[in-house]
């Protein structure tokens, strides 16, 4: 212990004397360790930390595998059957996200995100409310007085943390609700929702006599397993139940299988590959940083050769010298870790601010105890990694040989530089690997940005409203609202067209329905195809810039009570009607509104995401399938500036009409790429950091080489070498190292980037253009980095150099 303290004291003194070296090493490592800490804080919060519920590993989220797709959505009857029949579950709860306006006199209505949940959720999660309680089984029934549990944020912000809030009524949505509980700070459910959840109301109250059919899938289902039950047992049970339901209700359940997955796994499944890629990338940056500092230490070891020889001569064992040097390197990395932690605290704030809303558990991201322990452990490990090779190399002293070499009269060989060269090769290889990864993401993003969505997203703005039930109670009123709103918006100067749809492309929501084609045999149960479904107003296609390829769009003549019409997409016509003329054909869509006649064919658009190919779509007339939610699209040359004008125009129809949002179509499209953009930015930043570190590595080894080879350069010049010969010698050596590094890096990247396949679009993981460009970029930058010391070498005075020791 005493020896260790002595080593530590000496290490502090030694680093204090070499401040320049220490500063460079600490900064290099601090950036790398800081980046690792920041990314690990994200990985820890999302992938590693248990969910903030009681016994979270027992919580299972259910999904349903339909013949054509999988969804986390159940019908009420199927949920009820699982709850009753499954013996391995302790509790089951259903939930559905919702949004409501909170009304208060004198204040503009404010929209809050919340959820309807069944009463079982409260005991199942085991989270104790800050005030009051969750609602009871009795309160969770249709016809009971409405109750609500609110978030601590809403309680504090909208009710000034009123300690007597329990039992008071609030105007949340259409009916007043009694507050029965306030949840503690940070409580969030459902976890996957992009918005914070601010209220929870009873799902049972919304479900009149449990009359919904088994085809209406709209609820998430969460269960807690019994203590002694396993996931496999529960899954076996679920499979049996789903087969039973399939037999009893084949119409809606043929081919349907219920699936269970741990809540945590389900929550993070979408982001897991990206996070793993990021963690690898940031690990690579750290390795490059280690290689750089190891190189610096090797150069320093050469300078300290005499000191180490003296220590050996007076009896220090090799192990003792290695330990002394390792204490120095670990001290360096610990200091770097502390600085890195500081950088990471800013980095984490930045990460959270930049992270797209859909990233789960964003609120849990931060520098906490596990992150601190990670940084501490990583710092120690880093110190050992970059310190070990130089320590072993430096401790291998042979005074006799060293003296002999000095008298031999030939220049020192480059063999001593092999370790350093190997480190530079490794740095280049790792940089190539990382830059190829970033390059692939960039090329994917560029491709994706260039994808034609099938509509014109420029110079158009969307206004999102939900017509108030109190003012527009019936379908007739909703159609009137829709028409008047279009008229008001159309009257705004500069507006060239206005349309409306209940869902907009890339807006993160869609309806799909199965269907049959009239006059053909119905599709077998469980094999019905699906198509997207959107209710649109006259002017929608024109405003969106979606071409009508045949027939006509929805018009003012498509009125309520008239012939039910539908415009189908090009994909629908091609896929289901082949070469037949689609106009006049009839389809029966399972939305409950019966048979519709096809009156037009519209061009394909990418509705759900830019990555998914266009799929079959129904456009029905809003006047014939009314919806309360309406998204008006306004086309004008100055669309981006029209927000306040649109708001005023809508308020002319209903003074209290809440506005859910105003965004240009360009913004909606851009937001649909937010996750990919975030991933790209992070990877690019890491790749840039790696490149900078690698370039510094090349520069430092070439500078060191020039210093070490001064004598040789002098000899060469005395033998007639010109400046260009010296330049070629030094740059050639650098390029040899870079060439080997690039070759190794390309091989590694060819194998490793395959894990990125799911993150790419329009290119393969072995995209030749990306590989060639990255090799060219790294080669060019390495050339520049080696040119500076090489140029310095040409200025060597041969006379001085020959006498150089």
């Amino acid at each position, binding site marked *: 212990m005493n020896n260790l303290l002595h080593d530590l004291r000496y290490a502090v003194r030694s680093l204090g004397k070499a401040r320049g070296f220490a500063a460079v090493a600490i900064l290099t490592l601090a950036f790398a360790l800081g980046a690792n800490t920041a990314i690990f804080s994200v990985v820890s919060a999302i992938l590693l930390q248990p969910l903030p519920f009681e016994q979270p590993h027992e919580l299972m989220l259910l999904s349903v595998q339909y013949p054509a797709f999988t969804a986390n959505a159940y019908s009420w009857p199927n949920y009820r059957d699982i709850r009753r029949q499954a013996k391995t579950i302790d509790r089951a709860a259903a939930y559905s996200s919702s949004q409501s306006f909170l009304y208060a006199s004198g204040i503009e209505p404010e929209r809050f995100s919340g959820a309807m949940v069944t009463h079982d959720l409260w005991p199942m999660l085991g989270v104790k409310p800050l005030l009051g309680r969750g609602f009871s089984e009795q309160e969770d029934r249709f016809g009971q007085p409405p109750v609500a549990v609110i978030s601590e944020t809403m309680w504090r912000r909208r009710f000034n943390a009123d300690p007597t809030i329990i039992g008071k009524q609030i105007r949340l949505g259409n009916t007043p609700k009694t507050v029965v509980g306030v949840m503690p700070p940070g409580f969030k459910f459902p976890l996957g929702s992009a918005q914070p959840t601010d209220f929870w109301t009873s799902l049972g109250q919304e479900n009149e006599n449990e009359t919904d059919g088994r085809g209406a899938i709209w609820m998430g289902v969460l269960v807690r397993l019994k203590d002694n039950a396993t996931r496999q047992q529960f899954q076996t049970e679920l499979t049996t139940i789903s087969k039973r339901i399939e037999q009893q209700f084949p119409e809606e359940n043929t081919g349907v299988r219920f699936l269970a997955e741990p809540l945590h796994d389900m929550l993070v499944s979408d982001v897991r590959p990206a996070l793993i890629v990021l963690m690898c990338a940031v690990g690579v940056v750290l390795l490059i940083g280690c290689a750089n500092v190891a190189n610096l230490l090797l150069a320093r070891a050469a300078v300290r050769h005499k000191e180490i020889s003296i220590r050996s001569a007076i009896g220090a064992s090799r192990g003792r010298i290695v330990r002394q040097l390792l204490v120095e390197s670990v001290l360096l990395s610990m200091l770097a870790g502390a600085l890195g932690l500081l950088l990471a605290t800013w980095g984490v704030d930045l990460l959270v601010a930049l992270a797209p809303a859909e990233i789960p558990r964003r609120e849990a991201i931060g520098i906490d105890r596990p992150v601190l322990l990670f940084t501490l452990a990583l710092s120690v490990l880093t110190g050992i990694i970059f310190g070990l090779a130089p320590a072993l190399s430096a401790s291998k002293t042979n005074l006799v040989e060293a003296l002999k070499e000095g008298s*031999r*009269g*030939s*220049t020192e060989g*480059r063999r001593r530089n092999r370790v350093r060269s190997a480190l530079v090769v490794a740095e280049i290889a790792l940089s190539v690997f990382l830059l190829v990864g970033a390059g692939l993401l960039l090329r994917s993003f560029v491709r994706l940005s260039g994808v034609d969505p099938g509509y014109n997203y420029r110079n158009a703005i969307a206004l999102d409203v939900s017509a108030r039930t109190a003012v527009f109670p019936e379908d007739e009123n909703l159609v009137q609202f829709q028409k008047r709103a279009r008229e008001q918006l159309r009257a705004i100067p500069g507006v060239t067209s206005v349309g409306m749809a209940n869902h907009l492309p890339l807006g993160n929501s869609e309806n799909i329905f199965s269907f049959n084609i009239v006059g053909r045999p119905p599709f077998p149960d469980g094999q019905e195809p699906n198509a997207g479904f959107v209710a649109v107003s006259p002017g929608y296609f024109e405003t969106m810039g979606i071409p009508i390829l045949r027939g006509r769009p929805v018009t003012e003549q498509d009125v309520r009570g008239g012939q039910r019409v539908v415009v189908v997409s090009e994909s629908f016509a091609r896929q289901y009607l082949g070469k037949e003329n689609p106009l006049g054909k009839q389809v029966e869509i399972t939305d409950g509104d019966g048979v519709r006649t096809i009156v037009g064919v519209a061009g394909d658009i990418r509705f759900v995401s830019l990555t998914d190919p266009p799929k079959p779509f129904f456009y029905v007339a809003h006047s014939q399938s009314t919806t309360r939610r309406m998204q008006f699209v306004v086309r004008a040359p100055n669309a981006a500036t029209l927000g306040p004008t649109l708001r005023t125009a809508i308020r002319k129809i209903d003074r209290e009409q809440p506005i859910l949002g105003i965004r240009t179509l360009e913004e909606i499209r851009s937001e649909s790429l937010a996750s990919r953009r975030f991933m790209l930015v992070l990877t690019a930043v890491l790749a840039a950091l790696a490149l900078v570190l690698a370039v510094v590595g090349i520069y430092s080894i070439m500078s060191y080489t020039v210093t070490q080879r001064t*004598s040789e350069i002098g000899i060469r010049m*005395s*033998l007639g070498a010109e*400046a260009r010969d010296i330049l070629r010698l030094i740059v050639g050596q650098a390029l040899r190292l870079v060439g080997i590094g690039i070759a190794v890096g390309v091989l590694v990247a060819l194998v490793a980037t395959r894990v990125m396949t799911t993150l790419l679009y329009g290119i393969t993981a072995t995209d030749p253009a990306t590989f060639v460009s990255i090799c060219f970029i790294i080669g060019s930058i390495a050339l520049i980095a080696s040119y500076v010391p090489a140029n310095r070498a040409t200025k060597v005075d041969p006379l001085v150099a*020959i006498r150089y020791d």
Partner: protein
Amino acid sequence: MSNESLIQIENMSKVFYTDELETHALTNVHLEVKKGEYLSIAGPSGCGKSTLLSILGLLDTPSSGSYRLNGEAIESLGPADRARIRNKEIGFIFQAFNLIGDLTVYENVELPLTYRRLGAADRKRRVEAALERVGMAHRMRHFPAQLSGGQQQRVAVARALAGEPAILLADEPTGNLDSKNGEAVMELLRELHRGGATICMVTHDPRFTRYADRAIHLFDGRIIEETHERDAEVKLHQSGFDLAEAAG
């Protein structure tokens, strides 16, 4: 030895400036070296002999005076031309051999020829001939560290010879060798001289000045004495130095 001048130095001085001090390394030096001549430059440490050799070898420039090598004025040449002349006209033999540790014997000898952009076949012929000449052809695949000091200096001589230079400049060529190996290297230089080579050799060892046709003696940067072979031998006998004993 012909009567044709290879080196003509007129009134040359070299001054080093360090901080506020002026050090006169050479003062008003006049020197002529004929083609085929073997000149020895002698003198005590710090007398300026190495500075003179460096200027002769175009590794350094005089502060004043003129220098013509093979009829060409040297003072006005740029770095590239000086490098070219060093490569073609001058062969260096250093006290510390100055071989490059990472290159084999063959590659070391080949080095000046590569700077002359000669073809591979031509280089090979010259390298082999030079190594044959110094008796080191059998070690051409070895690295310098695998050779004795005497052998390394032979390789250095071969490297100086390979380019068939107009003049060989030797700076204390025996300084790092034992007496036996030193004698052998001096014999090698004498053989080369007999074969027509022009040699300028710096030495502070009076035993080896006898190998030269002529010796100049420097003191404080000035040539204070010039002796010919016969005179040098006389002087050595007068000082009681026994050549046979020194040769072992």
